C-alpha cells in the first residue's frame, strides 16, 4: 500500500521555533496562552480555555469568576431532559436536528454557540407537538409522568398538572401569573381537557425558560460577583453531573434552602454520582474530553477485517466504562492511565488476545494500561490505514496534559514519508526528526506517539512492523526514560500536569464556557485541594464545590 500522507506528520518548523525548543520539555504548566501553539500569536491562545495553566503549584491568585451566559440546552441535554421529564426517548428524533457546534476545547456545551436559530426552533416546536400528542394516549409513559392527578376534564386538576410540569421543565417554581398564562394557552384549544393539557405542554416545551438555561439578574445594586439562586445552582449541578434536569430531590433541596453550603453541595454531589444518571458524565464529559465521539465517524482500511461498527462501539464503551468505574469506586484519577484491567466484551477481548470474565479482563500481563492501552484512543488517533505517532502525541498533549499542540507545519514543506512497506514508522520518521527545524516540535510530540507504536491502527498489539522489531522506547517530556507503552502510561500518570488538566477540563465542561484566568486558578485550587493522589470523584466534587461553580458575574 502506498503512503497516506500524515497530516500532522510534518515538520512543525517555523511557528514552533523558539516557542518550545529546549524550553517546553520539563516545564510544568506554561501560563495560559504562552505555550506551544501560540508562537504565532494567533489561535494558540484561543484554547486558553484549557491550555497551560499550571500544575498544583499555582500560586494564590484571586479567583474572579467569568460570566456564564444563558445557553440553550445542547441536543444531548435536551434528549436526557425529555427522558427525565416525560420518560420518552427522543434520541432518533434528535439525530435529525441541526447539530450543535463544538467549542475550541472540544465541548458541545459551551454557551457561546448555543443559540436558537429558526430551523432549530422549528424542530423543537415539532418535537413538542409530538411529545404532547403522545401524552394524550391513556396509559402512555408521557401521560404517567404528567399525571399528578388524573381527572384532566376537571379544571383544578388540569391546573395542577400544568403547574407541576412547568415547575420541573423550567427548573424553578413557576409564578401564579405564569400558570395563568399556561391555563389560558390550554383554553385556546377550547375542546377536551386532554387538549388543554397537551397545548400547555407544547407551550412549556418551547418556552425560553425551558429551551434556555436561564440565570436571572441579581437584585439591583449587586456589584461584582454573586452566588446564583439555589434553583439555578441545582441546574448547574444536574447539567454538569447528569447532562439533565434536576430531579425532585434536588429541586426540593433548592426550595427548602438546603442547597447553600459547601456541605449541602457535597451531599447532593455524592447522591448524584451514585445515581445511574451519572453515566451522563462519562457519555458527555469523558467522551468529549477524550474525543471518543470521533470514533463514530472513523473509517479504517478494509484490510483491518476485525473492525466493525459494533467493535467501534465496544471500544467507546470500554473507555466510558473505565471512567464510570473509577468514579464509582472512588479511585485516583490516575487510574484512568494505570488500570491493569479493562471492561471489554468478547469481540474486544479477542482483539486484545485476553480472556474475559463478567465483562472484565485482566490486562496485567499485557502492555495495556488505562486509556492509552485502549483501542478507542489508539484507533481514533490513527489513519484508516496506519498509525500516526504525531496524532497520538498531540492527543496526549492536548487532552491529558492540557498542552496546546504545535501548529501544523507551513504549507509547501515536503513532508513525504518513505515507502511504508519497509521498516518501522520510527525509521521512516527519523529523517525529518533529524532536521533541526522540524525537531523543535516533533521532539515534543513524537516520543509519546512512538511509545504507543506497539499498538496498530485499530489497537491490536504488535511487536514488529514489516518484520522489523518495533522500538517503543523513548524519553518522556521531562526526560525520564521509558521502554514500552505501559511505562509511558505510568510516567504520564506521575506528571502533575495530568491531574491539573483533568481539573481544567472538568471546570470547562461544568461551567460550559471558556475559562478565565480566575477559573484557571480555581481549577488549580481544585487539583490542590484534592490531595496528592486525588480520587477522580473528589476532583469532580471539588469542582462542583469550588466557589466559581456557583458564582455569576454582574455584567459590566
Amino acid at each position, binding site marked *: 500500500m502506498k503512503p497516506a500522507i500524515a497530516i500532522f506528520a510534518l515538520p512543525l518548523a517555523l511557528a514552533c521555533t523558539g516557542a518550545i525548543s529546549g524550553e517546553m520539555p520539563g516545564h510544568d504548566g506554561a501560563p495560559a496562552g504562552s505555550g506551544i501553539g501560540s508562537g504565532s500569536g494567533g489561535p*494558540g491562545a484561543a484554547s486558553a480555555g484549557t491550555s497551560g495553566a499550571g500544575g498544583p503549584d499555582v500560586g494564590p491568585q484571586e479567583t474572579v469568576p467569568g460570566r456564564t451566559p444563558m445557553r440553550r440546552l445542547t441536543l444531548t441535554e435536551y434528549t436526557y431532559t425529555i427522558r427525565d421529564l416525560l420518560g420518552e426517548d427522543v434520541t432518533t428524533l434528535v439525530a435529525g436536528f441541526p*447539530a450543535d457546534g463544538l467549542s475550541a476545547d472540544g465541548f458541545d456545551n459551551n454557551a457561546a454557540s448555543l443559540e436558537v436559530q429558526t430551523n432549530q426552533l422549528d424542530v423543537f416546536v415539532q418535537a413538542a407537538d409530538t411529545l404532547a400528542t403522545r401524552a394524550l394516549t391513556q396509559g402512555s409513559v408521557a401521560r404517567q409522568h404528567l399525571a399528578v392527578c388524573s381527572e384532566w376534564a376537571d379544571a383544578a386538576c388540569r391546573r395542577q398538572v400544568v403547574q407541576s410540569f412547568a415547575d420541573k421543565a423550567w427548573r424553578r417554581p413557576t409564578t401564579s401569573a405564569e400558570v395563568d398564562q399556561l391555563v389560558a394557552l390550554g383554553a385556546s384549544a377550547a375542546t377536551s381537557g386532554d387538549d388543554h393539557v397537551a397545548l400547555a405542554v407544547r407551550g412549556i416545551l418551547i418556552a425560553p425558560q425551558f429551551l434556555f438555561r436561564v440565570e436571572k439578574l441579581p437584585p439591583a445594586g449587586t456589584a461584582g460577583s454573586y452566588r446564583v439562586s439555589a434553583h439555578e445552582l441545582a441546574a448547574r449541578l444536574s447539567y454538569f453531573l447528569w447532562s439533565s434536569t434536576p430531579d425532585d430531590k434536588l429541586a426540593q433541596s433548592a426550595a427548602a434552602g438546603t442547597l447553600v453550603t459547601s456541605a449541602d453541595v457535597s451531599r447532593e454531589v455524592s447522591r448524584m454520582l451514585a445515581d445511574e444518571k451519572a453515566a451522563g458524565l462519562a457519555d458527555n464529559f469523558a467522551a468529549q474530553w477524550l474525543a471518543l465521539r470521533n470514533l463514530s465517524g472513523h473509517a479504517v482500511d478494509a484490510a483491518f477485517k476485525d473492525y466493525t461498527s459494533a467493535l467501534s462501539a465496544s471500544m467507546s464503551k470500554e473507555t466510558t466504562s473505565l471512567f464510570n468505574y473509577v468514579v464509582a469506586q472512588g479511585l485516583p484519577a490516575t487510574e484512568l492511565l494505570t488500570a491493569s484491567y479493562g471492561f471489554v466484551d468478547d469481540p474486544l477481548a479477542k482483539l486484545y488476545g485476553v480472556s474475559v470474565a463478567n465483562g472484565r479482563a485482566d490486562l496485567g500481563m499485557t502492555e495495556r494500561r488505562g486509556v492509552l492501552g485502549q483501542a478507542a484512543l489508539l484507533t481514533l488517533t490513527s489513519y484508516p490505514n496506519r498509525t500516526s505517532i504525531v496524532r497520538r502525541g498531540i492527543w496526549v498533549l492536548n487532552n491529558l496534559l492540557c498542552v496546546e499542540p504545535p501548529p501544523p507545519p507551513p504549507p509547501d514543506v515536503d513532508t513525504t514519508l518513505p515507502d511504508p512497506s519497509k521498516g518501522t514508522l520510527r525509521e521512516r520518521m527519523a529523517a525529518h526528526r533529524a532536521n533541526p527545524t522540524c525537531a523543535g516540535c516533533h521532539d515534543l510530540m513524537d516520543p509519546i506517539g512512538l511509545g504507543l507504536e506497539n499498538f496498530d491502527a485499530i489497537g491490536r498489539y504488535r511487536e514488529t512492523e514489516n518484520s522489523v522489531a518495533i522500538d517503543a522506547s523513548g524519553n518522556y517530556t521531562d526526560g525520564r526514560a521509558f521502554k514500552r507503552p505501559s511505562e509511558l502510561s505510568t510516567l504520564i500518570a506521575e506528571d502533575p500536569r495530568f491531574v491539573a488538566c483533568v481539573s481544567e477540563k472538568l471546570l470547562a465542561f461544568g461551567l460550559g464556557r471558556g475559562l478565565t484566568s480566575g477559573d484557571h486558578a480555581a481549577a488549580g485550587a481544585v487539583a490542590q485541594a484534592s490531595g496528592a493522589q486525588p480520587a477522580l470523584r473528589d476532583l469532580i466534587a471539588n469542582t462542583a464545590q469550588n466557589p466559581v461553580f456557583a458564582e455569576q458575574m454582574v455584567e459590566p
Partner: protein
Amino acid sequence: MTRRSLRLRRRAFISASGAAVISLPLFEAFEPKLARAAAGIPRFIGFYVANGKHMPAWKPTTDGPEYALTPTLMPLTALKKKFLVLTGLENKGAEREVGGGHARGTGSFLTCTNIHTASEISSGSRPNGISADQVMADEIGKSSRIASLQLGLTNNGRDQGYGSEFIQNISFDKNGKFKPKTIVASSAFDTLFQGFDPTASAADVERRNKLKASVLDFAVEQAKALSPTISHSDNTKLDQYLTSVRELEQRLQSSGSGAAACAGATKPSNPMAVPDQVKAMMDVMVLGLQCNITRVITYMLGNGGDGAINGFPWLDISDHHHAIAHHQNQQVNFDKLMKVNLWEIQELAYLLGKLDAIDEGGSTLLDNTLVLYSSEISDGNRHNHDDLPVLLAGGRNLGVNSGQHLRFNKTPIASLFLSLIQLMGATSVTKFGDDGATPLPGVVT
C-alpha cells in the same frame, strides 16, 4: 402549458422523491398553479466541497465560450451551456497569518470576512460576517415559507484554535452566528413539509395552524416577560429566539401553497452509503426549490480538513480525504484526488440534471436557480485561498452569461457574491463582505 412539459415534470418529480408514492390526480390539479407561481423566481444553492481540488485536472487552459472541458469537469458535458467556470477568484476573508486554514476558508466561504478565533470571540469579537445566502434570505426569503435551509452530509471536524462552527457551517446570520445544518434527509423533508397532511380537511388544517399560532404567541409572551429579568448580553440571545419565533409565525401564515402543490411527495429513507445520502438530500433540495417552499439553500458535501469524508469505499479509496488532499506532489495522491473530485462533480451533475429536468414554463428550474459551487481552499497542499475552484451553474433565465470559462487574477470572490445577491433581486445591496465593492464583470449578460 404543453403536454410534453407536463410529462417531463411529472417524471422528474417521481424520481425526485425516490420511492415516493405520488398522488397524481392531486398533483396534476395543483400543477398549473405551481408553474405560474414558480416561473422566473430566482433561487440559490450554495454548494460547498471540502479540501480543494487537484487544480491541473480542474482548471481549463482555454478561455471564453469555446473553452475545452477538463477531465474533472467531464461529467457536466451535457450541461456545458448552463454553467460558468470561474478561475482566479480569491477569498481574502480566508487569509490571515494564523493556523486553521480549513476553518478560515470554510467559515468565510460565503462571508468573505475574516472569522475570529475562539479566544477572540470570548473577548467580544463578532464570530463572522453575514453570509451571502443570508443576505439573500433577509432580502427575498420572506417570499417563500422557509427563508433559508442549511443542509449537509456530516457534522464533524474542528480546526485548531477555532470552534467547530467554522468548519461545519457556511451560513452565518447578520450577527455572525452560525446557522447549523441538517444532515438527515428525512429531517430536511420534515422541515419542508411538516404539517401537511393530504387527508386533512381544510378545517383541520386551519385548526392545527391556529393551535400552533397560539403556542408561538405564548412563546413570544414568555420571552417578553423574561427579557427584563436577564442581562443585556443574554437578551441578545433571547432576541435571536424571538426572531426565530417570528419567522416560524411567518411560515405558518404562508403554509399550504407550496406543500399542497407538492402533495404526495413522501419522506425519503435515510440511506447508509454516502453517495446515497448525498442523492437523498439533493432530492429534498430540488423539492424545496421546485415547490417554492424555500428559495435559498446551502449544502456541504463534507466539512473541511479532518471533517471531510473519511474513506471512499465506492471509489476503492480508503484514505481520509484530508490525508490525500495533502498530496505532497505524489502522483498516487493526485490520482486519488482526481477520482474524488470527479465523483464530487458527478454528484453536482446529478443535482443540476434534476433541476434542469423540471420545466417552469419554457425555462427550467436550473435556469431559474443560481448554483454556486466551490471549495474552502484551492490546492490541498498549499491551503491557498486564491484561484478557488468555482463554478456558477444555472441562472440563464436570470441573466447569467453561462457556457464560458472566465479567467480572473486574484479578483475578490466577494464580487461574484455581490452579483449573485443582485441577481436574486436584492438590487439595493451594493457591497458584500470585506472586499466585494463591485459586481463581477462578465457574469451577467
